[in-house]
């Protein structure tokens, strides 16, 4: 039993830190640290920096351009990035589609699409959820009907996807579509790659409760998709869908984000006062803070235990559901305390306060507007990626055998 990283892992961590210190632009880390908006160009810039070093697709095998890291190295990398306030890697192409193509794609698909993910030629978004298929993902209704015409084999897609994160930036979308309406619902689904510039696609913004444009609805009206864009076999798309959902959840607990957010919370609570004393010394606030800090310390070890268990190369199963539930609860609690710490200044808010070039005098403490926005924005954590209630269903079935 040894909670320390090996000398090799420590050396790796030092290498990651040195890279971040040298290559992560302060302009970007300042935006992240201060809860400011990141532009499409900001995210592309960070991807390019990582790709230059060969660290962008860190879940991919070496033969496809991944760095060949162990589970622990990936964990270290993700944590160090969070602690350094780096922008997050936009996961849809690199972390979601990439592994699916590597496992289920044909040779032509791998050769064409994978390099384009790395280079940033394509910006992918995820076409999974539908208005009638949220937690019950297999209920997708968007249809794809196969046909042949003068230009060759194709599918005609009709339907609607929703919660499409950063779809406004994307030129490609991977979709779960129904190709067989007769079969059991999981058995009639296919995995299709669709060009967002195709005629018949309409992207409409969904404005979230914090006023943010992050997610979208995508409508498909008689959209023609070349048959070669089918990944895996027709009607076997659910296998790809599940693989994508369970693949590589080493960072699902978001421990690095929580550690960074907790450090910020402590700094804020040292500056804000109650009864003339820093909030840190207020017994009630200090007690809330200590509770979440202790839970996080325990979570770090739980997370490492899961990673160590799969370090042999396995994919974490239902254990990642535990990490997801408690990890997101901890993140939400820290953000909730950060909002509380702002007192009356948690309320003033306009979207442009989160722009890096917002020139006016802020209302209250620097982070006040971002604190409230992040609190509301991150209510999503316990909803997306399989709601925490769905995770409990998975635990009941897979671990508890109920």
């Amino acid at each position: 039993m040894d909670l320390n990283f090996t000398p090799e892992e420590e050396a790796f961590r030092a290498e990651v830190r040195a890279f971040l210190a040298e290559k992560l632009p302060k302009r970007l880390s300042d935006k992240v640290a201060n809860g400011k908006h990141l532009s499409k160009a900001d995210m592309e810039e960070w991807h390019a920096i990582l790709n230059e070093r060969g660290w962008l697709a860190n879940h991919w095998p070496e033969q496809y351009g991944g760095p060949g890291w162990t589970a622990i190295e990936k964990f270290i990398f993700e944590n160090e990035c969070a602690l350094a306030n780096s922008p997050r890697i936009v996961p849809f192409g690199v972390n979601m589609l990439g592994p699916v193509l590597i496992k289920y794609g044909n040779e032509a698909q791998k050769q064409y699409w994978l390099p384009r993910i790395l280079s940033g030629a394509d910006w992918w978004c995820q076409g999974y959820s539908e208005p009638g298929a949220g937690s019950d993902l297999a209920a997708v209704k968007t249809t794809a009907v196969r046909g042949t015409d003068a230009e060759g084999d194709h599918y005609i897609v009709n339907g609607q996807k929703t919660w499409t994160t950063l779809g406004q930036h994307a030129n490609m979308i991977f979709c779960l579509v129904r190709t067989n309406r007769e079969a059991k619902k999981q058995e009639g689904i296919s995995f299709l790659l669709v060009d967002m510039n195709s005629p018949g696609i309409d992207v409409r913004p969904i404005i979230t409760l914090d006023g943010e444009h992050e997610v979208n609805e995508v409508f498909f009206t008689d959209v023609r998709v070349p048959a070669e864009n089918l990944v895996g076999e027709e009607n076997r798309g659910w296998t790809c869908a599940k693989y994508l959902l369970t693949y590589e959840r080493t960072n699902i607990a978001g421990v690095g984000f929580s550690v960074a957010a907790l450090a910020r919370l402590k700094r804020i609570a040292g500056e804000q006062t109650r009864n003339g004393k820093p909030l840190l010394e207020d017994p009630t606030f200090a007690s809330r803070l200590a509770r979440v800090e202790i839970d996080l310390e325990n979570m770090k070890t739980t997370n490492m235990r899961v990673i160590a268990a799969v370090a042999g190369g396995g994919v974490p199963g239902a254990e990642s559901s535990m990490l997801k539930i408690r990890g997101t609860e901890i993140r939400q609690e820290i953000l909730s305390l950060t909002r509380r710490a702002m007192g009356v200044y948690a309320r003033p808010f306009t979207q442009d306060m989160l722009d890096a070039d917002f020139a006016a005098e802020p209302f209250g403490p620097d982070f006040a507007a971002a604190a409230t926005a992040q609190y509301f924005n991150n209510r999503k954590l316990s909803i997306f990626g399989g709601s925490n209630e769905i995770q409990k269903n998975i635990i009941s079935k897979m671990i508890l055998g109920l």
Partner: protein
Amino acid sequence: MNFEHTEERRMLADSLNRFIAEQYHIEARNRTAASEQGFSTEFWQQFAELGVLGALLREEDGGFGGAGFDIAVVFEALGRGLVLEPVLGSAVLAAEAISFAGNDEQKAALGEIASGDVIAAFAHDEPNTHYELARVQTTARREGDAWVLDGVKAVVQAAEGANVFVVSARTSGDVDAEQGISLFLVPKDAPGVSVRGTPTMDGGRVGDVTFAGVQLSEAALLGAEGAGYAALERAVGRGILALCAEAVGAMEAAKEATLDYLRTRKQFGVPIGSFQALQHRMADLLLEIEQARSTVINAAAALDADRITRERALSAAKMSIGRIGTLVAEECIQLHGGIGMTWELPMAHFAKRLVLIDHQLGDEDHHLERYIALGRAVQQDPAAA
């Protein structure tokens, strides 16, 4: 990073778990708990032979273990069996106080603790304390070349079954000062020592121990006069780790029993485990128990760290265990429904132990407060870390 126990520890855990599963039946355990002594001399000797006591003591103290993970492994197994024998008081609390503060002659007694021939009890809590480590009203004063001990110690584990007490007493300073606490080794049969014993809700016997003008020789003083606090902290720290690990063992047993029940008990024609309302509560418990396991690992790993790191990890662990242990107990009773309220159900005894572990060596509130205070000490004086 490695979360596997060493081969030796795995073997010890295996043999101990097997012994407890095969020999330490709950019905007999409950009869023993209600017996005059509150534990079984026979089992005490068998545990000693199995190496339970020796594993808790360092080599130089006559044992063959004594590291944080030795304590964790042994007590998780004891927790699974709801073991009554006074391993904690003798081989952890009293033994560590002697090991930390004792002179060579006093430390010689550790061999007898390791063999089980001597049962030592740790007499520190008092009727007017609420887990505060430094609050000691029992007094010891010099009279000629002797010490005279006066006071009452509260809820001492196996006070009647012990041969010797490690007693904290104030020799100077204010009632809650860390300075001025001295430790003494007091034979139970010393004139002026009396024990008022009682069974407990969670099994085994404890006693309030009165020291009325007890005359002790200079050789009874354990460590330097007035400097006993550090030894108390070390002993209690190891005791906290032991209790936390014991709780994880008891949680596992309670969880398994509850899962069995959810799978077999039928209502409305189906196993009640098919109801989502119960599944989600059980999933929450599983998650909390894994967090409890992690907190024990953190505490065991920190046992030899610098003082603030160590004590914060121990308080974090005891606070977590207090919260989670109580939750597991309450939820397991609730998930069992009516049968969970009965003496007949083994799980109910695990639930009682889990709740009352929070009443030993500081509860959830005490350790949350202490964790915060220790953190503040670091902020004000980074050198303290």
